[in-house]
């Protein structure tokens, strides 16, 4: 029964993935890609990785999908001009792609027989941190340097996106204007959903210490609420030069770094937590990170600042 479900899911993943590759219309491809992301998060559940599943659904499918939908909407006219590639080139590309796929698939049969695993050492030291979720433990205790740098990557991405604004628009309002007319139904959704979303995001971040969830997923839910409010026109996006906005953006990385340097004082190493204080420090870090992630994700999707007159 379960194997049947897995086979169906794997086939469906391949079909939907293939569809989004060969779809003629760009918007179709993007929407199929979003559906693919949701199916993929089901596959992650089947692989016993609930944290990854939540991240895939929220960021891989939701946030990436939204970015792509906005982009596909803006470049919709480009599809008229289709570059004609010769049939031979298509066949060559297909053969090459098939060789890559077969090569990687064959690796499954030469993997070392006795799989190595860090699950036991992680579980052994996890109680010291006060966390119950092993994935959160890896993210915030054992590999916290990775997590810190990943936040810096998000920050750099935002700076990169902003840097693409015209000089005249610098410091202005992000150019997210999907609905020019006010839509009363959408306004209703933008007024009723955010309170629920806020509570859910806080719950997700808080519960992430012990069960699947955490700052990323909570932050993405918050970002989604903010984008909904911006798209519906209930609140305009803020000017990117506004000091509170910039404070919210750097809050997460700054708190993370501060706690990291605090480690030099007490246990004597960067990003080491003092004995017995790991849990409160991690929760403080996650709170600041949730805020920063939400604001950065929202601004990444809202795009670079744009003047009022630009289309």
């Amino acid at each position: 029964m379960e194997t049947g479900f897995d086979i169906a899911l794997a086939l469906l993943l391949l079909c939907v993935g293939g569809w989004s590759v060969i779809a003629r219309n760009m918007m179709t491809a993007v929407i199929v890609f979003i559906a693919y992301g949701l199916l993929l998060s089901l596959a992650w559940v089947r692989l016993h990785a609930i944290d990854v599943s939540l991240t895939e659904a929220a960021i891989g499918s939701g946030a990436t999908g939204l970015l792509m939908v906005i982009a596909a909407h803006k470049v919709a006219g480009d599809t008229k001009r289709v570059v004609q590639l010769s049939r031979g080139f298509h066949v060559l590309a297909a053969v090459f792609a098939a060789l890559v796929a077969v090569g990687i698939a064959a690796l499954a049969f030469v993997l070392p027989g006795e799989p190595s695993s860090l699950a036991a050492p992680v579980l052994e030291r996890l109680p010291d941190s006060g966390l119950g979720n092993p994935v959160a433990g890896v993210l915030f205790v054992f590999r916290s340097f990775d997590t810190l740098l990943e936040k810096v990557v998000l920050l750099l991405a935002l700076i990169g996106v902003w840097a693409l604004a015209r000089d005249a628009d610098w410091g202005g309002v992000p150019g997210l204007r999907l609905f020019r007319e006010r839509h009363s139904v959408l306004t209703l959704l933008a007024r009723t959903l955010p309170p629920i979303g806020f509570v859910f995001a806080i719950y997700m971040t808080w519960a992430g210490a012990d069960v699947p969830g955490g700052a990323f997923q909570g932050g993405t839910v918050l970002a989604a609420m903010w984008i909904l409010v911006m798209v519906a026109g209930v609140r305009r996006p803020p000017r990117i030069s506004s000091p509170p906005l910039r404070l919210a953006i750097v809050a997460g990385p700054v708190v993370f770094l501060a706690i990291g340097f605090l480690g030099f004082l007490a246990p004597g190493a960067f990003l080491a937590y003092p004995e017995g204080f790991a849990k409160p420090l991690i929760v403080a870090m996650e709170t600041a990170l949730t805020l920063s992630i939400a604001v950065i994700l929202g601004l990444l999707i809202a795009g670079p600042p744009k003047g009022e007159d630009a289309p």
Partner: protein
Amino acid sequence: MADLFTILAVTAGAVLFLAGTVGLLRFPGTLARLHALTKVDNLGLGLVVLGLMPQMGFLAAAKMLAVWLLVQLSGAIVTQILARSVRGGGER
């Protein structure tokens, strides 16, 4: 008894999902497709949730009910927006 109820309700829900998906793929025109889709959202998911409730503890059942209500809210509103954009222009 509870198991029988679960099997019946979830099967009925699955049939609705199948019918709705066939409708989504085969119906002509966006409005007809939306019509097919709303049945899946409301009744199909509702039946699946209802069927699974006796198998869960109280808290999990309440969470599933909340999921269904949220899908109702977003589904109804998104359908409205799509339908209005099909009819052209939306409201002024």
